[in-house]
């Protein structure tokens, strides 16, 4: 049986833990709002980009001398997985669900006899994948200070790195793993192929082009050459923003749970504390009474 003093100490320590988780929850809630706004603000650009690509691809046929980013290398032997995770932990199942999806993909690819390479964006994913696939990780890019602070340039840097590897023939297919933000309590781990580019269908939403025939300046190929790398960077940027919102959402619900659990624990401990205290008082009374009776 724990003494009264031990119980008191334990209650106090749980209380201070609760304070921390509560504060973290509130910080996450306010960050979530901003991250969500950023993710939503980036959507018009990505959507317009898709429209431009759609109008370009509508009037174009794939040929051998097209940019490799569009047509691919003609093989799919070497897969590069870009695993985007958080820099920090304590955000519920956020990191592990992305890593789990990536891990499933790695196992499936290895079972098919493909070569797998991993590029980690964010420390947590690297830490988790290093246990089993340390040899496959070719590089880790850390997003210090969060994507909102780094802005678009970091996505550009990651994209440049991918192009350099692609040009060097280091991989044939690149897929990015991230968590799509649905709501504060639901984030969907997603895998999206970014190289070679998956062209949107000609009629994939957007305003009705009314069968418009576009004029291109300078030319379709020059435009594609400029647009495709840009598109990869935009997709990465979008993935990172979605990830940032998901991370905060996940952290918020995790910390909310933790705060509630701490509350339950405090209640239980307080009950035990009071019982023990009452038992001690009863014991003292019995001692006094039996002492008086003995006289």
């Amino acid at each position, binding site marked *: 049986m724990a003494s009264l003093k031990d119980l008191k100490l334990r209650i106090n320590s749980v209380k201070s833990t609760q304070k921390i988780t509560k504060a973290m929850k509130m910080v996450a809630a306010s960050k979530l709002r901003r991250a969500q706004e*950023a993710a939503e*603000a*980036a959507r*018009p*650009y990505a959507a*317009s*980009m898709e*429209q*431009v690509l759609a*109008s*370009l691809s509508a009037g174009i046929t794939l040929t051998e001398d097209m940019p490799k980013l569009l047509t691919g290398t003609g093989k799919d032997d070497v897969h590069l997985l870009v695993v985007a995770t958080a820099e920090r932990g304590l955000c519920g199942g956020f990191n592990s669900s992305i890593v789990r999806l990536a891990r499933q993909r790695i196992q499936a690819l290895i079972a098919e006899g493909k070569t797998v390479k991993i590029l980690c964006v964010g420390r947590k994913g690297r830490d988790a994948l290093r246990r089993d696939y340390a040899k496959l990780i070719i590089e880790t890019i850390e997003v210090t200070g969060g994507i909102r602070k780094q*802005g*678009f340039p970091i*996505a550009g840097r990651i994209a440049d790195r991918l192009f350099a590897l692609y040009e060097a023939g280091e991989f044939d297919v690149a897929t990015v793993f991230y968590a799509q933000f649905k709501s504060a309590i639901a984030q969907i781990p997603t895998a999206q192929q970014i190289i070679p580019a998956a062209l949107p269908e000609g009629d994939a939403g957007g*305003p*009705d*082009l*009314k069968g*418009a*025939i*576009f*004029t*291109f*300046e*300078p030319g379709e190929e*020059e*435009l594609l050459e*400029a*647009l495709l790398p*840009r598109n990869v*960077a*935009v997709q990465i*940027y979008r993935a990172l923003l979605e990830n940032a919102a998901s991370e905060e959402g996940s952290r918020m619900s995790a910390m909310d749970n933790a705060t509630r659990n701490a509350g339950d624990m405090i209640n239980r401990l307080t009950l035990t504390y009071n019982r023990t205290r009452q038992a001690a008082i009863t014991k003292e009374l019995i001692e006094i009474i039996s002492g008086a009776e003995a006289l």
Partner: protein
Amino acid sequence: MADKVHFELVSPERRLFSADVEMVVVPGSEGDFAVLPDHAPFVALLRAGVVEVHDAGKTSARLFVRGGFAQVTPAGLTVLAEEAIDLAVATKDVLAARLADAEANLAAAADDAQRILAESQVTAFRQVLEAA
């Protein structure tokens, strides 16, 4: 018929401009072009320069873009800028800092393509700074 053209300017970070205006002058890679209502469908590469928005008979907004794309559809004009600065808001200091960045890029350029790109940006920033 519509006497206004719908113009949207978006950068990766956010949507900067969205309104119906009379005319927009866009710095295309092969020369400036103006977009009036009922422009033919058109996709163009942009160079670094200033997008001028004309409305109600005068220039209502000037926005600096650092390259990107423009798309004209029957629904209007969309400019996808790599980076955009509203010149009504930006101060000289901001522009000077960006010019310094661009010059550093030019110095660090590894091949011709990068050098040409960086050079055009430096020139564009200089012009804007002088005009400011």
